[in-house]
Each structure stands twice: as structure tokens, then as C-alpha cells.
């Protein structure tokens, strides 16, 4: 059962998806970055959001 922080994070991811600006693959990357209670640094997030969408980077 998720705690409050997990529930808020889930809503955060759902809102990101609703904006339509992030692919499912990018949302998955965001989930992985925060998985297991990890606390990513700003530079990790800058790198993630600066990268092309995963499917676009395929040849």
C-alpha cells in the first residue's frame, strides 16, 4: 500500500502524462529516477529533460 508521498508522486506522474508534453517512455524514465525513494540531483533531472524522447533517439 502506497504512503502519502508515493500517492503524490503518482499524481505528479499522471499530471505530467496529461500535459501531453512527455511520452510514456519519458514518464517511465522519471519513475525510474525516483524509484526506491531515491533523491535525484537537479543535474540528473536537467539531463533527463534535455535528452530526446527515447523513441525519437532510435535510428
Amino acid at each position: 500500500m502506497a504512503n502519502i508521498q508515493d500517492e503524490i508522486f503518482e499524481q505528479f506522474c499522471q499530471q505530467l502524462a496529461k500535459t501531453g508534453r512527455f511520452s510514456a517512455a519519458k514518464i517511465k524514465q522519471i519513475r525510474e529516477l525516483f524509484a526506491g525513494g531515491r533523491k535525484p540531483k537537479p543535474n540528473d533531472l536537467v539531463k533527463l529533460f534535455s535528452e530526446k524522447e527515447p523513441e525519437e533517439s532510435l535510428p
Partner: protein
Amino acid sequence: MIQIESVQIEEFRGIRDLTLTMNRGSFVISGPNGSGKSGVVDAIQFALTGEIGRLKGAGTGDLTLAEHGPHVEKRSDPEAVRVVLKVFLPHLKKSASITRTVKKPKHPEITPDEPDIRNVFAEVAGHPETTLSRREIIKFILTEATQRSRDVQTLLKLDDIDQTRATLKITENKLLAEQATAKTQADTAEDSLKRHLDLAVLKPNDLLAAVNKCRKVLGLQEISKLEGNIVRSYAPMQALRKLRTGEANTTFLYVADYLTRRSAAPAA
């Protein structure tokens, strides 16, 4: 909702061996300072969540459950540090017990080991705000209005959310700064291209025509569309080398003069 029937505490915090029977009712613990009242609250919280709230958060420094959970005489024997909580679950109409040791705080022993009972304990463990210490309650009462929202977050164990929000804000600022830099570079490159090709606006067809005009001067074939790396051609490099070595004919001199004038001209 759960109702506590009893709690059995062994070698936990300042308590060597204590069993309290609550019989599913509300209860009050009283006693002199240092007699272990908070230890009982810590033990109940530990049994339910595997954590001790007051060993975490601001001002707790290097305090850890492994080192500061056991009684001072049992720090080297975390397996002996045990809390057994017997509870009644009204909505399931079942009694159950949960046992935790400091050695394996995240792996409680639940009896009876049934899925619906496990789910109840898992939900409680995911909501550590269900157990509030005296310090947390007093801090919330005495806090100033401007700090109250932050303290509510602390009570609800939402400190990480605040930290993540700050991290996201820093990330946003960094990305906006990078975007501004990239835009400036793009604008500069566009201005430079317009100046060199003598174009007021970079429309694809005009750009293609201007490029082909330059390619014609350099003796290159016309191209039908603009793509990356099209200027990486051997002929222009040869032409530039001849210009530098004085082997240029009048055509090359014309090109050099053209490019020099375009470079020196003010931006369109």
C-alpha cells in the same frame, strides 16, 4: 482502523522488559521524567512502521535505528530487541500480532499470516503519520503561522516532497537558462547566415537559391534540397587553399572579395 490489545517491549530504547495491556481501549501513560513513557510510543510506532520518528528528520544528526533503537546494554545484539504488538482489526473482526526486531525492522512477523491482515499492516506501515510523538505534537502547537504548513508536511512525513519541489525548481531554472543560451546562439547563427547570404528572411526556397548561387560561384553542382553537411565538399577547401597560397584565379579572388564584403556588412 486497529485497536491495540497489548504491547510487549524487550530491550528497546530505555526499556528492558515491559508488557502493557490496553484491551482495545484508549490509554494514558504517566510517570516521572526519564521513566520511558516516550519509549512506549516509540515501541508502538516501531512495531507498526519499522521506524522511530524521532530518530529521523531535522536535528537528529547521525542517530540511527540500529544504533539508538536498542537498549544501551543490547546495542551489539539487535536480534534481542523485540516489540510484539497484539491488535484487533474491527473491520475484519480478527485479532493479529506483529513482531519486529531491530535486526530486521522491515521484515515483521505477522500472525496469522493472512493476506487481508498483511494488507492492513502494510497500509499502516506506509502511513507513519499515524503515530505522533509528544515532541511532534508540541512543535506543531507552538509553531508560528508562517511555519505551520511546513510543520504539517513534517507531521505527515512529507519532508521529501518539499525537497523534491526545491530540486524541481532548481532544475526548471537551469533548463530556462540553457534555453535562453541556446536561443541566443540560434539567433546569432541565423543573423550570421542572413548576413552572409544577403537574405532578409530565412525562407527555405530563398535559402536554397542563395546557397546554389554561392555553389555556382565556387563551381559546385546545384542542390535540390537543404540537408546537413552539404558544405563539406572538397572543391571549396581547394579553392580556399589556393586563395591562401596565391594560386587563385580571378574567380577565386571575386569569391574572396564577395565573402569579405558580406562578413563586414552590418546585420540585416
